[in-house]
């Protein structure tokens, strides 16, 4: 390495720094781990944060231009586990006649309880044949694996639910025929015919099937619905249509609520922003920790090598040269640590992606993390380098 020292002062100093780094392998490994783990943690956090935001954006976009009419006693506005007092078929006719409504379909919500694990509740939505036929964006139209159910004994499962169950150690695959408990205590075997992905995270965390099956699961009378899915003519008409529906259905029995599912996500968006801020704070703390770590490691090596620096000064180096040498060593360690951190972080994001689909952050973010990591290593080296440059050779060499 230093054989070619001879080609310029910067190169000579850099090669000597490289040689010095390789001298103390344990110290180098510690410094690499400090920077590497810090930057990999930031990458994983960025990946999770990106995943949260992407999923939220996708869901918001998928829910744009949609309204749900549901009984006021329905949970979560009737869009999730939405059972309450059933809505009579007359309500569907009223909604369809309201100005600005493009179409409306009755849905039935129910809960699926696996027979071997009744405490687990899987949200189930039954779709009417006309909605399945007419509307894009329903689970039936978005099957990504297998096929749509063909009868009341078949179901399809949202991809996110499959991932979540897999994460919890429970498999639900195409072709399986799990048993579920009915409200009267009997069980029913349902065949999983496919996996769907609509892009709407709420729907994708549920099970879908026919409305007949849903009525059976929820013990709902024929022609009654849990909720009404409404699509407006244009997304910007959601608010006026919501007002019209409230006016039209003011005297409905049971009393109803009109919900824009997108609005229900506002608190979720606020929570996501808070989580984003938390992840950013953790990232900054991690960067600070890495800076302190490399600073401590470099300080220890500088203390150990005081005599060497004294000799370098005795043979003609000035303080600035010694400082540059130690800074170069710090820079080399942080570059190597950054490479390690990028590898670990991207690997971690990919491993997490098997369950949570965060995905590796985009290139610009990786570059930002790399720049931050190199900066961390360099800043961490400033104090030890300054200290090394101020070594008093006579004093150190006299101490033997």
């Amino acid at each position, binding site marked *: 390495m*230093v*054989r070619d*020292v*001879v*080609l*310029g*002062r*910067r*190169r*000579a*100093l850099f090669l*000597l720094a490289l*040689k*010095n780094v*390789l*001298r103390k392998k344990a110290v180098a490994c510690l410094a690499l781990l400090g920077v590497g783990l810090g930057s990999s943690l930031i990458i994983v956090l960025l990946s999770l944060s990106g995943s949260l935001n992407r999923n939220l954006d996708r869901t918001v976009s998928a829910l744009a231009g949609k309204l749900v009419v549901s009984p006021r006693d329905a949970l979560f506005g009737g869009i999730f586990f939405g059972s309450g007092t059933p809505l009579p078929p007359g309500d569907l006719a009223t909604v369809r006649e309201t100005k600005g409504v493009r179409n409306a379909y009755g849905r039935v919500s129910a809960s699926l309880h696996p027979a071997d694990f009744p405490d687990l509740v899987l949200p189930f939505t039954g779709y009417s044949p006309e909605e399945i036929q007419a509307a894009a964006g329903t689970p039936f139209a978005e099957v990504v694996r297998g096929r749509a159910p063909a009868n009341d004994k078949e179901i399809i499962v949202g991809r996110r639910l499959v991932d979540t169950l897999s994460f919890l150690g429970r498999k639900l695959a195409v072709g399986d025929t799990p048993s579920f408990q009915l409200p009267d205590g009997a069980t029913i075997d349902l065949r999983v015919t496919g996996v769907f992905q609509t892009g709407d995270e709420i729907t994708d965390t549920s099970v879908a099937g026919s409305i007949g099956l849903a009525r059976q699961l929820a013990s709902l009378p024929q022609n009654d619905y849990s909720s009404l899915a409404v699509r407006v003519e244009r997304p910007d008409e959601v608010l006026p249509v919501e007002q019209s529906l409230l006016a039209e259905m003011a005297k409905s029995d049971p009393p109803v609520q009109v919900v824009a599912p997108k609005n229900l996500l506002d608190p979720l968006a606020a929570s996501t922003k808070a989580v984003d801020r938390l992840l950013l704070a953790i990232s900054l703390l991690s960067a600070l920790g890495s800076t302190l770590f490399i600073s401590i490691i470099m300080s220890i090596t500088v203390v150990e090598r005081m*005599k*060497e620096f004294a*000799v*370098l*000064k*005795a*043979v*003609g*180096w*000035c*303080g600035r*040269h010694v400082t*540059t040498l130690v800074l170069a060593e710090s820079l080399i360690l942080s570059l190597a640590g950054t490479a390690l951190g990028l590898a670990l972080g991207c690997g971690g994001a990919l491993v997490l992606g098997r369950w949570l689909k965060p995905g590796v952050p985009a290139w610009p973010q990786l570059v930002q993390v790399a720049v931050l990591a190199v900066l961390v290593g360099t800043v961490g080296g400033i104090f030890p380098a300054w200290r090394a440059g101020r070594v008093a*050779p*006579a004093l150190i*060499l*006299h101490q*033997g």
Partner: protein
Amino acid sequence: MIRCENLEKTYGSVNVLSDFNLSLPRGAFCALVGPSGGGKTTLLNILGALDRPTAGRVVLDGTDLTACPEKALYRVRRDKVGFVFQLYHLIPALKAWENVLVPAVPWGSAGLKERAGSLLSMVGLAGKEDRRPGQLSGGEQQRVAVARALLLDPPIILADEPTGNLDRASGRKVMQLLRRLNQELGKTILVATHDPGVAGGCQSVIELGQ
């Protein structure tokens, strides 16, 4: 070449050098002797621009060290002085020739590799250029240190107990080498030593700490 006038050096209340005067001509080969704590190393450090006197004046090859700003002293160490230490102080990870090149690293050592090789040959280490300090005997390490001191061709060599850590035979070789540098290259050499045999081999002797 080396001139000290009324030199004083105190550490707290301890007076190590007091009203010390010295004048050595170019090409002198002089031993500094005296008891431990007598000021030999202190004087070498001051002459080598590693330390400052408390009072007095030091002129080295025409440069007044006492008037030289702190930040410029490294030029004196680089251009005027070559240091040889009792404990050699080589960098363990570097090969012999790389250690010889160390003084030139900040300025780029282009073209100096051959010089490092020829200096190692001159000190009797031809064929051992690629060995690391741990693979060399004490005497050989000290000769590498001498070659390092000669790399930038300084007119003055300051040697602090250069044989203090060596057996008699190795010490004799090192002293023969210093004598050659003095006689063949005209280097001004100042050797601090406890060893009367070493002092006896020098042209003149200065006693400190009397």
